């Protein structure tokens, strides 16, 4: 707890150097102004746990008053997180560690976002069809959850808000009318992402739908589909708010993209932490889950959405979305 007069400092620890977090950063800046706190914002340069851990340790050394974490490996990191929870209030956002002593989780699980994507697939391919999933790495928690959400939705498993913890092995997955032919990973390399998309188009000429789980995957898919002259013939669904994807939605060859609300992840996390530190009522529900729902952006919503994004970014000195 902070003494009166001293400025409250909060560490905000994301899980990688992605554009996505720029919006969260903007949200943090907004909260900084709103509550007069200071936010130490961190993006692990190569998205590794080692970097995340290193930063958390230094922040502890500096003596921050609260911390928000998007945890890279929830299960195994729980002991480490509990060490911190013992000293200061901790909330999770984007990626939760449910078994830890964190005060709250802000966000919607990636699993739920995956289910949302699954629904969109069903809607796009009502008579069934073949699809391929593209992602950077399958040992990243958000990738596992999103993919599992899609599979469970297509296989018609009962709805759950949280990742049940069992990953369907890679390779071909049958789900009734729908078949996931493969899950191709690229290790975070955009050129491999595009290569994978291209090669998939060659390998499966009768493919119906491609879905990219990480932000750069969908632009890569779009680029490959355009090169092959298959716009419109192959349906595309994406995640996150990449400019090219939003453009594709506008132009009609991308069915939709599932977006979370990173800006709110930032703002709300700081707000809750601020209130916890000040001993105020933070309004955390009993199940500790603060819902910031994921949405699917389709052609009808895309303009409004882009507008909102730009307003959010106006808080910091970030680039505009064009």
């Amino acid at each position, binding site marked *: 707890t902070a003494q009166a007069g001293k400025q409250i400092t909060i560490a905000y620890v994301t899980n*990688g*150097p*992605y*554009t996505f*977090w*720029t919006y969260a950063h903007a949200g943090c800046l907004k909260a900084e102004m709103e509550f007069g706190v200071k936010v130490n914002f961190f*993006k692990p*340069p*190569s998205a590794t746990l080692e970097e995340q851990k290193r930063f958390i340790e230094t922040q502890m050394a500096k003596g921050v008053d609260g911390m928000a974490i998007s945890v890279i490996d929830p299960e195994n990191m729980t002991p480490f997180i509990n060490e911190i929870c013992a000293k200061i209030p901790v909330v999770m956002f984007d990626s939760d560690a449910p078994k830890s002593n964190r005060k709250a989780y802000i966000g919607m699980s990636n699993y739920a976002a995956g289910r949302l994507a699954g629904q969109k697939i069903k809607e796009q391919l009502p008579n069934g069809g073949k699809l391929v999933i593209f992602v950077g790495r399958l040992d990243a928690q958000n990738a596992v959850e999103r993919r599992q959400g899609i599979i469970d939705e297509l296989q018609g498993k009962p709805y759950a808000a949280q990742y049940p913890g069992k990953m369907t092995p*890679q*390779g071909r997955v049958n789900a009734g009318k729908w078949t996931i032919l*493969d899950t*191709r*990973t*690229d290790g*975070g*390399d*955009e*050129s*491999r*992402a*595009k*290569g*994978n998309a*291209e*090669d*998939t*188009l*060659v*390998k499966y*000429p009768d493919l119906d739908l491609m879905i990219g789980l990480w*932000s*750069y995957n969908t*632009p*890569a898919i*779009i*680029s490959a589909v355009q*090169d*092959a002259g298959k716009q419109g013939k192959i349906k595309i669904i994406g995640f996150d708010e*990449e*400019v*090219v994807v939003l*453009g*594709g939605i506008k*132009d009609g060859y991308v069915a939709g993209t599932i977006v979370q609300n990173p800006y709110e992840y930032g703002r709300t996390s700081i707000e809750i932490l601020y209130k916890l530190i000040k001993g105020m009522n933070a309004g955390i529900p009993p199940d500790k889950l603060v819902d910031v729902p994921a949405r699917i952006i389709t052609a009808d919503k895309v303009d409004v959405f882009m507008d909102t994004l730009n307003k959010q970014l106006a808080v910091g*000195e*970030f*680039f*505009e979305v*064009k």
Partner: protein
Amino acid sequence: MKRIAGIAVLLVVVMLITTLIDTTFIKGYNIMNIMRWSGLFGILSLGEAFPIMTGGIDLSVGSIAGLVGALSANLIRMREMPIALALPICLALSVLMGFLHGLLVTKIRMQPFVVTLCGLFIYRGMARFLMQDVTQGYGNAFLGLKFLAHGKVPLAFWPAGHAPKFIATWSLPMPFIILVLVGIILAVFLNRMVYGRYILALGRNEQAARFSGINTNRMTIVAYMISSTCAGLAGILFSLDLNTVQPSTAGNMYELYAIAGCVVGGVSLKGGEGNILGVIIGTAIVRVLYNAINILGIATTLEFAVVGLVILVGVGADEVIKSFTARRRIAEVRGVQAKGGVGTSTAA
């Protein structure tokens, strides 16, 4: 020449095997994709070959490609700079980076590995800082510029839809054409002009080259400039092709691919040895491998292992064959002697 024949055989074998298992491999569209990727990565490898030939190395090419690619998109789209200004600026920046590497290597006598390793870190940091970690791209516009990365050449000369069928399926992607042009220029530079010999000589023995009146410092700097310029050019093409450049990851590990292309293509990491065609074929092998892995549906988890193994076996076999041919030549001499041929062999 034997060296090139060797890896050409390797390339053909990999392609043949893949085709036999799955004929979609030789579809025009697929081959064209491979050629485009070979073009993009080939330009990187060609540049990389020059510092290696001087006995150095350039670990920064991936970061340079990332930085310059991100910057070009940023200048053109975000800052709305005219293309005719933005591209020269980006290329000039690339040249400058190589120049700095060369200066540090020659004047301060720092080891190339260290200089370019620091470059790898610094340019990555610059890219991230300048772009604030925000993904860069050209959006849906700039189709003319994107022709550099997406264009298919014979096709471009026909009105839309009127190209003959065989051209439609087999036309040449622009990056490949750019690779061939860069390759020809560098091949003339390396094989026909005095500079090539200077670079090869100093790569083997810098002192001896200096004693021969070669301005070894200048040649070394030139080699690093070639490398960084090619990296910058490739970076721009990559950014046009992919249309998304994540400052934190774009070009990550590309230096390893560039070096792998060189190594498979017969550029010796000890310096003083290398040829352009080999590097192009070497790059193509790596690209074909990646493509084949996808076409054959091999698990992506195994991807790296397959690529590493093929390179290892390819280069290793070459090494073994080399010592074999040396032995064969001895055997030949013995054969001649046995037949009572030439008595002595030292005479000029």
